[in-house]
């Protein structure tokens, strides 16, 4: 399972981080960092929650 972020769409409002803090972090530079590019299947549910929380549809699962 691979996390794909469209950084052109991302507006760094950190809703993904709130839903899945172990996978996403928005740092003080204002950019989103993906903490684990290829999380295990056991993280699918939180990743899907992050996908749904993102208001710009910037995250997809590859």
């Amino acid at each position, binding site marked *: 399972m691979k996390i794909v972020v469209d950084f052109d769409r991302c*507006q*760094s*409002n*950190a*809703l993904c*981080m*709130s839903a899945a803090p172990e996978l996403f*972090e*928005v*740092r*003080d530079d*204002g950019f989103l960092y993906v903490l684990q590019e290829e999380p295990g299947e056991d993280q699918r549910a939180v990743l899907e929650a992050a996908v*749904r*929380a993102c*208001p710009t*549809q910037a995250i997809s699962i590859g």
Partner: protein
Amino acid sequence: MSVGDSHVVVVGASLAGTRAVEALRHQGFDGRITLIGDEAHQPYDRPPLSKTLLSGKRTADQVRLHPDGDDYASVLDVTMMLGRRACSLDVDAAEITLDRDERVGFDALVIATGSRARHLNHTDHLPNVYVVRTLDDCLRLQAALVAGARVVVVGAGFIGAEVAATAHSLGCHVTVLEAAPVPLERQLGATMGTYCATVHARHGVPLRVGVQVDEIDANGVILAGRERIQADVVVVGVGAVPNTEWLQDSDVAVGDGVLCDAFCRVRGSGAGTLKGIVAAGDVARWTNTLFGEEMRIEHWTNAAEMAEHAATTLLADLNGDSSSLMPFAPVPYFWSDQYDIKIQFLGRSTGHQEVVVVDGSMESGKLVALYRRDNQLIGALGISRVRQLMSYRNLLATGASWEEALTHAAQ
């Protein structure tokens, strides 16, 4: 009848409606679903309408809610009835009447008809007056926002402020008028409302508060006191009203929104809730037990989350097993992008007695401010302080005390 034989009808094909459909499928519902919406477009997202779509950074195709577009209906196996309006509901007969007098029966119903822009009286016929609620509204306004155009924005709420910022970035000469003495007071309180509104002046956009618009005509607006402001474009951003007229003669309890219980079930005009009917999004008013407060929220995250929750309740009720249901008790959240700042708010400000800036400062333009009611943390405002703000979400979700919040802030 098994749940799989049921027919769920969802009225309103925007964020809440489509999220309800998706949640029903994700949760394993394999019966029929019909999604009815009165806009002819494929479902699209509204926040870009005052931001990136209005500025031309995104196209209409790029703001669709489902990039796979037409496949959506087949992937989710949903019958889409777009460009069709629900005109009335008969709860006893479990039937909706659409325009052209077509009837659609249901076993369960999701009400997701959202809200619409409030208009000012007697201005709809004027070609220079605009609201921003739909894709068509936005495209029409976009065509008028040419460099050098004189734009008056009536209303300094979030949408008005965003439109002002976008119009300014396009080279328009913008003036913002607000009737209340303090902009955004209901959402942010007086101190922070006043502070947030200084963003206009910082960008050279005049904001006038406490001014009443008396009249709008082809040349601009006339204020109480007969002062005239010339404008090529007048954008009216004076709030939204819930779309409940179609429920007027039904058994559904309506009062500034569709009234729901804490689980998103729709209340009847008598006592109790209506079997198999839930509501979500801008149209729904419910009691959020986390805050002990009845609310109707007109923001993106609430529509998305409430729709999912309503779908869960609906399936549990259809299955006759509601024992494990949880009330819908989220920490409300919204954001607004204006000029170069990002405003974000978690929780509530209603009835707050104190606001304290705990991080950053007003001078720097970046801050986190906390809202106290009695001894509780009830809200947190962030201005261009994304990560710091989000750290308060858990505190709000667990009903943290004011001391706990201040301790967290000091860390």
